[in-house]
């Protein structure tokens, strides 16, 4: 009996050791209106900017759910309009390794909140703070900076190849109209 219970505790210990934050979900971070991302005063512009005083929710960068939400918000707040799906258009690409204003979560957070020269507007007071963190985490995932079991999977609407079914119709020679035989041959 004691053998079995020891085995059980060993198993329980093993299970609790591998408990992960990946599946943590925060459902009630406060209402969107009450916690808008605050505008911190602009100081200097550059990659070396010190991160804003830490109110960083640690769980967000490690939670698959939060990153998935960030992906959805990235579409919803029209980040796509300038950055496309990470490839860049009017704004810089987000899926490469070049970071003008820093690649850490905090730095991306301040970039979104404060805005940056040459077109990046400030979203201070427009997006709830926890959502900014989620978007920032998703932005990091685009350049592969999050573990693969946290990063969101592909989007269903972004085909990687042209599917066979959506090719334009081809007209091989054999499809040209054939002469119709009206009388049966005898």
């Amino acid at each position: 009996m004691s053998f079995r219970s020891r085995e059980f505790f060993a198993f329980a210990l093993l299970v609790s050791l591998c408990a992960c934050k990946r599946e943590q979900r925060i459902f009630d971070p406060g209402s969107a209106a009450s916690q808008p991302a605050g505008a911190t005063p602009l100081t200097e512009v550059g990659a070396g900017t010190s991160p804003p005083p830490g109110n960083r929710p640690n769980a967000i960068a490690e939670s698959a759910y939060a990153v998935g939400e960030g992906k959805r918000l990235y579409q919803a707040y029209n980040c796509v309009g300038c950055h496309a799906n990470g490839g860049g258009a009017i704004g810089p690409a987000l899926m490469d390794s070049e970071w003008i204003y820093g690649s850490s979560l905090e730095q991306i957070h301040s970039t979104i909140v404060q805005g940056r020269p040459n077109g990046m507007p400030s979203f201070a007071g427009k997006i709830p703070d926890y959502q900014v963190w989620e978007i920032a985490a998703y932005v990091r995932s685009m350049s592969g900076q999050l573990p693969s079991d946290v990063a969101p999977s592909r989007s269903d609407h972004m085909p990687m190849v042209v599917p066979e079914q959506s090719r334009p119709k081809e007209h091989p020679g054999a499809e040209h109209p054939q002469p119709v035989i009206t009388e049966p041959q005898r």
Partner: protein
Amino acid sequence: MNEQHVVIAEESYTTTSDAERAAQLAKVWAEPSGFLGWFKAVHHTTIGKRYMVTAFGFFLAAGLLAGAMRLQLAFPEAHIMSPDLYNQVFTMHGSVMMFLFAVPMMFEALSVYFVPLMVGTRNIAFPRLNAFSYYLFLFAGLMLFAFFFVNSGPDRGWFSYVPLSGPDYAPGKRADIWAQLITFTEISGLCVAVEVIVTVFKLRAPGMSLNRIPIFVWGEVVTSFMVIFAMPGVVVASTMLLLDRTASTQFFNPAVGGDVLLFQHLFWWFGHPEVYIIFIPGTAIVSTIAATFSRRHVFGYMALVLSLIATGFIAFGLWVHHMFATGIPQMSEGFFTAASMMIAIPAGTQIFCWLATILTGKVVLKTPMWWVLGFFFVFIIGGMTGIFVASVPVDLQVHDTYFVVAHFHYVLIGGAVFPMFGAFAYWFPKLTGRMLSEMLGLWSFWLFTIGFNITFFPMHILGLRGMPRRVYTYPADAGWTALNQIESVGYIFLFLGVAVFLYNVWHSLRRGEMAPANPWQAGGLEWATASPPATYNFLNMPTVNGSEPLWDALPDQPVVSGMHEDVREIVTTRILDAEPEGRDEMPGPTAWPFIAAVVTTALFIGSIFRPIAVSIGAIPLAIALIGWFWPTREESQRRARRNIWEQS
């Protein structure tokens, strides 16, 4: 009624030579002992008992999850559980009940234990495969609960529809874990299906022609065929889901020509027959118990067998009635409504055969018979609401409401859990050698039946009032509070009913009255051997003279002789008339199935995180399978000697 003329049970050794033979057989068929022996066991009674205990454990766990849900729903605007935890809990409840309890208990556990006994042979066909299937089933459950305890329980419902469970909308690994759970349990079900079919078609006792096979065995054979045709559908669906999520395939992505409804078609191609896979063994149990406790052969044996087979066929023609709300063409809706109504014909035939059996017999009201009567009451109500939801206009109104929840709990608990408790009450003496208490049995029956109806009947009304299923809470002014509170009180009765049953089992295992070989004076072959049966099942392999072998036996019913008793030898018979055809040898105990199951488990769990795990895991799996099938010299030589054609 003759008793034990056919087979000599252990108590009735008449000669010293019988006792010597019993000792010899016990030595040859011995199960290995000790801690390591546990992993080597291959006898169907050992594996069958493990299946029962494990599946019942999962039943209790999923029942506790149901209790958590009833607690959450007992109060409006409750926040006992977060919505996220609630999603996991209802998904776990459904998945565990369907994949880890209902099918393993009604099909795998009962058929592994009883089919070889009922057809009069010494072990199930492919016993090592049988052990392998059990370990896979066990590991599937352990994996699921381990992930649940680290906050990674599946949370997309027990059928995990895409796109909600697809790569775009289900972050994390929860949906992958659900998909691999399915693969595990279905492989284990397929293994048992193959074993049962071969056991019944090739290993029946001489004389047990097709029209003498016990109804229960018929039920499990029909179920096996259904498993073979249905389960690949869901294995394919879950594997495609997993590939979509981890390996960037696009099976279910409409943007590139994939199809979201394909998942539902594949799932319900399995999912609807699944309901009958659960229910057919239940009806077969009802036929068995009704015949024994009415003290007569079952009325309309042929009609019953044919309706089992008809149910098996028609079950594959109505899966679309789960998809009436997906916008399929009206022609399909009409066709599948008609097909759904048609299943009432074989179901009705069975019910009238049981009624005729009971009305024309001399009924003995013991606990198993009470469970059968409870089955009639509950299952027929479930069948009635089935007619509601099979009709498209009504279904569109009640789709995804508590009405559907009420319907499927009436058919599943009525069709599977009531017969299962009846089966436990009926076969417990055979399983353990001890009798259950009648009084406690009646207490658990009445508590369970009353609790069941209090819990699930109000759900019909709640559904008609518009309460959707799977909501984690509801507003106080929705008018749903009182009925939800009644349901939660009903859960307490259900809980007590199961608790009394467990106490009954525990008490009877310690101090229960010893059971004779055939305490109910029943007619099946399983009652012809000792309780519990020895590892060789029968001292003399029996022959059969009717559909209830013990009732129909001649005063001098012959037994099979001329078997080698120094090896694990069995008789094989022809499919139709069960004429003896030859002898074959059963493989002995080995740990290889366990090792293969461990490796398979590692491969499956690894593939949740990295697709390459399939390729890497294939190497140790191949090694395990080579070890499993490595031939031994003596065995091959014996096999060659038995083969009369090769010798000449």
